[in-house]
C-alpha cells in the first residue's frame, strides 16, 4: 500500500517535473527545516550512491512524509537527467562542465558540493614499490614505463595497466589531478567498468598490475597494495591537512528549471546532507568520504 502510494507520488513528480520547465530561482532550505513531504529522485554516480542512500535513510526518518528515490546510471547520466528534469537531483563525481558536448540547460544547473572523496593508486601484491611520484605515476599509466624496475622495484616486473571507462568519474579525477596533459596508454590490460572488478583484477594479477580507485572501496582484505603519492599515504587525514592531493568533490546538481514538487524535497534533502549533523556524522567517514568543510582549497578535477 505504502509502496503503491510512493510509486504514484513518484509518477506524479516525474510528470510534473517534465511538464513544468520554467525559470524560478533556487532557494536553499533554512538551517532548521520543518518536516517536508513528497518525493524526489536522485540519479547518477555509482560512487556517490552509498552516501546518498545513507543520507536518504536518515532524511526519511526525520521527514516521515518524504521519499527519496535513489537511482544509479553514471555521473553523466545523472547530469543530463538533472538538466532535463528527469531527476530532481543529478549525482555526479565530475563537474557539469566536464560534459562534452555541453549539456542543455547547463547554465541553469546549481552545483552542491556534498563531500570530498579521496582516491588511491593500487598495485598488485608482487609490486614492492611503495610510493610513486607524480612523474612515475604518469609514466606507468601512459605506458612510457613498461617495467616496474624503472620506478624502483628491486626486480624486473611487467606493468599491467587497468583503466576505467571514459565515463568513469574516477578516471576523470585521476586524469585531471595526476596525468594532466599526459594521456593514458592505448594498450591497457583491460578497461574495467566497475570498482570492485578492477580491485579483483589487480589483486590477482601475478605481474605488476596498476590502477586507481576510490579510497573507501579498498578493504584490508582486498589483496592490493595502496601506493603513496609523492611520498604521502592515502588517508583522509592527509587529505584534510593538504598533503595528499588525489581527491575531488562529489556533486549533487539541481536545476533551476525544475519547478516540480520534488524540487522542494530535493533542496531539503541536499540541505540535510550539508548539515553539520550529516557532514560530521558516522556514515560519511564509514563510507570513505570526508566532510566538505574539512578540506580547504580546490582539486584540479573540480572544473
Amino acid at each position, binding site marked *: 500500500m505504502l509502496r503503491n502510494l510512493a510509486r504514484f507520488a513518484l509518477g506524479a513528480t516525474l510528470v510534473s517535473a517534465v511538464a513544468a520547465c520554467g525559470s524560478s530561482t533556487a532557494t536553499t532550505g533554512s538551517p532548521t527545516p520543518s518536516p517536508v513531504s513528497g518525493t524526489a529522485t536522485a540519479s547518477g554516480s555509482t560512487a556517490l550512491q552509498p552516501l546518498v542512500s545513507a543520507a536518504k535513510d536518515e532524511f526519511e526518518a526525520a521527514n516521515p512524509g518524504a521519499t527519496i528515490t535513489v537511482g544509479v546510471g553514471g555521473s553523466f*547520466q545523472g547530469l543530463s537527467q538533472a538538466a532535463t528534469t528527469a531527476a530532481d537531483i543529478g549525482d555526479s563525481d565530475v563537474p557539469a562542465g566536464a560534459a562534452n558536448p555541453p549539456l542543455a540547460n547547463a547554465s541553469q544547473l546549481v552545483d552542491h558540493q556534498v563531500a570530498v572523496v579521496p582516491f588511491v593508486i593500487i598495485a598488485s601484491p608482487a609490486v614492492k614499490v611503495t610510493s610513486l611520484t607524480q612523474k612515475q605515476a604518469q609514466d606507468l599509466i601512459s605506458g612510457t614505463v613498461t617495467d616496474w624496475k624503472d620506478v624502483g622495484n628491486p626486480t624486473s616486473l611487467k606493468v599491467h595497466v587497468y583503466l576505467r571507462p571514459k565515463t568513469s568519474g574516477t578516471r576523470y579525477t585521476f586524469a585531471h589531478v595526476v596525468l594532466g596533459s599526459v594521456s593514458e596508454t592505448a594498450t591497457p590490460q583491460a578497461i574495467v567498468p566497475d570498482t570492485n572488478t578492477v580491485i579483483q583484477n589487480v589483486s590477482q594479477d601475478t605481474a605488476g598490475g596498476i590502477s586507481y580507485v576510490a579510497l573507501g572501496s579498498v578493504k584490508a582484505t582486498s589483496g592490493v597494495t595502496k601506493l603513496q603519492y609523492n611520498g604521502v599515504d592515502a588517508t583522509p587525514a592527509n587529505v584534510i591537512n593538504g598533503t595528499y592531493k588525489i581527491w575531488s568533490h562529489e556533486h549533487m546538481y539541481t536545476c533551476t528549471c525544475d519547478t516540480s514538487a520534488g524540487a522542494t524535497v530535493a533542496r531539503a534533502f541536499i540541505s540535510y546532507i550539508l548539515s553539520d549533523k550529516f557532514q560530521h556524522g558516522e556514515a560519511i567517514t564509514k563510507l570513505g568520504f570526508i566532510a566538505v568543510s574539512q578540506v580547504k582549497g580546490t582539486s584540479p578535477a573540480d572544473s
Partner: protein
Amino acid sequence: MATMIGARRDSRRAPRLSRYHTDRAARGGVVVAALLLIILLLAVYAFIGSKAFLIFGKVSPLTFFLDTTWDPLGRPPHYGAGAIILGSLSVVGLALFIALPLSLSAALFLEQTDQALGERILRPVIEVFVGIPSVVYGWVGLTILVPYIARTADAGAGLCVLAGGLVLSVMILPTITSLSADALRRLEPSLAESSYALGATRWQTIWRVLLPAARPGIVTGAIFGVARAMGEALAVAMVVGNVPNVPRSLFIPVATMTTIITQDLPNRALNPDLNNALYTLALVLLFFSLVFILIVRRVTRSNVS
C-alpha cells in the same frame, strides 16, 4: 453469458453453438497473438533500423566497419567498429571450435554409447547446465580461469580472447549437446541396423551414417549455440578485458559488440552520435542473428526434401 446458461439447460442443441463460439474466440485469440508477435518483431527491426543508419551521416560505412579505432569520447571522436566486430567473431568462433567436438561426443554418448547412464546422469547434468546464470560463468571465469591463463601463458593479466572463448564454450555446450542428441534420437533405428547388417563397425556407422543423417539437427544446435554466444554480454565482459583491440592472438584483450554496447550506454546522454553508433552495433547483432536463423531454416528444409 446467456448462451452458457442456455447450454447448461439444453444439453443437445445449444452446446454445439457455444462450442462454435468458443472455437471462434480461441482462434481469434491465437491469430491476434501470432500477429502481435510478428508486429513486435518487425517493430524491433524497424526501430533499430531507423536509428542505425544515422551514424553514417558522420562517418562513412567503410570507416565504421573497417576502421579499428573506437574512441567515441575522444577529441575528435572515432567510430571504427572493425575491431569490435572482429572481437565478437573471434570469441564466438573460438567458443564454437571448442564446444562442438565436446558436444557431439556427449550427444553420441547419450544416444549411442550408454543410453541408460546417459539418461540417468548426463542428461540431468546438461539440463542443470542450461539453467546456470551467465554471471556465475563470468565470475568463475574471472576468479579461476583468468588468473590461470595469466600464470601459465604469460598472457598479461589473462583477460583475453581465450578466456572469453572458454567461458562461452561452456555456456553453449548444453545447447549444442541437447539439440544434437535430439537429432540423433529422431533417426530411424533401421539406419543403424542396416549399417551394422552390412558389416560396418560401430565407428563407421556413427561417422558415415548417423552423424550425416543427423546433420541438420546438429547444425541447428551449433547455430543456436553461436547465437547465444553472440548475444552474451555479462559473462564475456568480465573476462575479455573490454579493450577494442584487433584479435591478433588468443592472448590479447578484446571487446565485443555486446560489451561495448553495455559499457558505452551511460555515455549516450553525452554524445548523440555515440547513441546512433550503438544502434548500428545493435543492428549488426540483429543481422548476425538473422543470418543464423536463415542458415538453420535452409539446413532443416534440405533435410525434409
